[in-house]
């Protein structure tokens, strides 16, 4: 197995009927593997933003970008390395936790800035948003306690703001 090299593609698209189907269809048709896909509105109602994560060690990113650009509804594609972008993801995770064990679970969540979204008799649902790596780490730590269900949004990203030049 080659080491994964994740790359984020932020795709600004026209908010037209079928645009998600176009992107998803193209990806399937060309056999491009993607790690995640998140879709949402932007500040301008005529555009949406799709955030695609691909593994550069598995796919030819340049071809994906060129093929996506051929879609008439695609306006602009920005490629991010994890280092020059702010990336966030939201996760809901349901953990089987009896009242005795609950505090341990909550403590773990709090270390990562997570919150309690719902509490039941023998399970607890946590909510965490943050860099995708944090979500992975928390999930690993929760695993021994018995994770019953996970839902993640897939990551969204924007380019990092330019920092003032230090002279």
């Amino acid at each position: 197995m080659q080491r994964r090299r994740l790359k984020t593609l932020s795709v600004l698209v026209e908010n037209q009927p079928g645009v998600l189907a176009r992107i998803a269809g193209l990806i399937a048709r060309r056999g491009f593997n993607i790690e995640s896909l998140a879709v949402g509105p932007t500040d301008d109602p005529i555009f949406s933003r799709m955030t695609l994560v691909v593994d550069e060690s598995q796919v030819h990113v340049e071809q994906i970008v060129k093929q996506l650009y051929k879609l008439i509804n695609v306006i602009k594609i920005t490629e991010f390395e994890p280092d020059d972008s702010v990336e966030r993801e939201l996760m809901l995770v349901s953990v089987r936790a009896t009242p005795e064990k609950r505090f341990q679970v909550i403590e773990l969540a709090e270390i990562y800035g997570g919150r309690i979204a719902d509490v039941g008799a023998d399970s607890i649902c946590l909510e965490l948003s943050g860099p995708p790596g944090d979500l992975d780490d928390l999930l690993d730590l929760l695993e021994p306690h018995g994770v019953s269900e996970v839902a993640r949004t897939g990551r969204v990203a924007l380019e990092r703001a330019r920092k003032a030049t230090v002279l």
Partner: protein
Amino acid sequence: MADRITGSQALVRSLEHVGVDVVFGIPGGAVLPVYDPILDSPIRHILVRHEQGAGHMAQGYYWATGRPGVALVTSGPGVTNILTPITDAFMDSVPIVVIAGQVARAAIGSDAFQEAPTFNMTMPVTKHNFVIMDAAEIPEVIAQAFHIATTGRPGPVYVDLPKDVGVEEMDWWWPEDPGANLPGYKPNVRPHAGQVKKAVELITAAQRPVVYAGGGILKARAAEALRDFCEKTGIHAVTTLMARGALSDEHPLCLGMPGMHGSYTAVTSMQKSDLLIALGSRFDDRVTGRVADFAPHAKVVHVDIDPAELSKVRAADVPIVADCRLAIEALIKEFDKQERRREERGDAPVDRSAWNAQIDAWRSAYPYKYVAGDRPDVVKPQYVLERLNAAAPDAIVTAGVGQHQMFASQWWRFREPYHWINSGGLGTMGFAVPAAVGAQVGAPDKVVWCVDGDGCFQMTMQELITASVEGIPVKVAILNNGYLGMVRQWQDLFYDERHSEIYLSQDVPDYVGLAEAMGCAGFRVDTVDEVDSVIAKAMAITDRPVVVDFRIDPAEHVYPMVPAGKSNDGVILGPAFGQPEHQMAGDGAAPMTSGGEGEVEPPPEHPDGHMTLDKGGF
């Protein structure tokens, strides 16, 4: 005062506005509202017998006129029947606009009668598609559809029109600029000056350069520019299956067709070249053979209007995104400039005399050649094509898919562009007859010869009924070998002559009787000495279609040949050069496959070691 009209009237008026003069189609429930205003329009409607015919006619019309072809069909089966030509046009970058009725808006998604997810179905095989949900959008969508189909890398555009949108009223308007509301569509047509300079530096330094001219030359109306470029630089050109005629076959710098059944000289000059100047070509697997072995010593200058083609298959040393005509013109200008500088410096130009002599030697040693039949009743397909070409040198030629297509591309001497119309990328049997009808509609003063296989003919021959009834006098030469000949060739060569499901019969159907039943003249040729006289008879008939049933030698194979997935270094010249037939069977046979056209090799390795996945699905 607002001009209040129905959506259907707006649609027909929009077609008139973009300059449509002919529509190929067949009505049905969902598209009925559109057929009513057609009655009052100067647009000619040609009633086809099958929607596949309408699509291929639109393609043929484009090739003959340079204007986009238009097809009009009903929802559901009307659209599924035209998916083949849409895909064909997509593969060969042919601008057609297909307009289809759809069930009423409220019924979409409800499995209503003749409702199919046609918007979804056409999405992956069109350059773009639309569904019109408001009659007010009709003029803009039609303007955009034609704009998208004909600019950039051309291609098919599909428009879905729900029935009630066609009935609804709207205030007529016409958009000034069809591209105004397409923020994501800005094809790059002008070549980058720096890249042009780099390209010319490679061109002037190359010892063994070859122009690899593809269909993009014809789309860009760049044949003249290509000739100027070749003459100015003295560089030879190969013309791909999609570009036959882009440089005249009579031109001393033209090397003919490259690829699997290309001329020895075209294939080998590319193999040995040190610079490939790819102009509007896409390194298709039928041209390259095994990619890893293709033109191993060549640097590549690659001009294409579609950036996704550059370095898709073969890494380009100098990629240029541009319209082919503008790029070639820029290359010529830059070439002049660099040549002037060289002269000022007093340097000698590169000496290509040895290379040019080598090319001439290949040409005279390995021309297209066949073994003439030893009996008068053995009619060779190559001979038929030679005689047809002699009788109608200026004809537009269409072809189906198979041996007859390869023979036609090899043996016809194309002296002008836009005289060869065939299905290259998709390889669609049944293309030839309707494409010929469409071409004849677009070019009524030309002679149009459809060179078809007996198998292909049986797929779409009913469009000859359309042709008779509409007075479209196409001529059809059936190269009747009684077989799915190309499949037979593969079974002969790679499956030890085990013939599986390829026999058609030369006698059934009775093609002469069939032609007459469809309102055409019909002739049959059984012997070599009948060939010329029957061609003359066919040429003399101009008031209706003609079908000639040429009974040809079923055992003939197409040569030269490079087996699929093999290196282009291994051109097999065939029996005319004393090579035994069937030498490929047994050991060293090409990979076994089930299709007539064999297999596409696995995706090439990407230069940095990753697989490019653009050829495979999953």
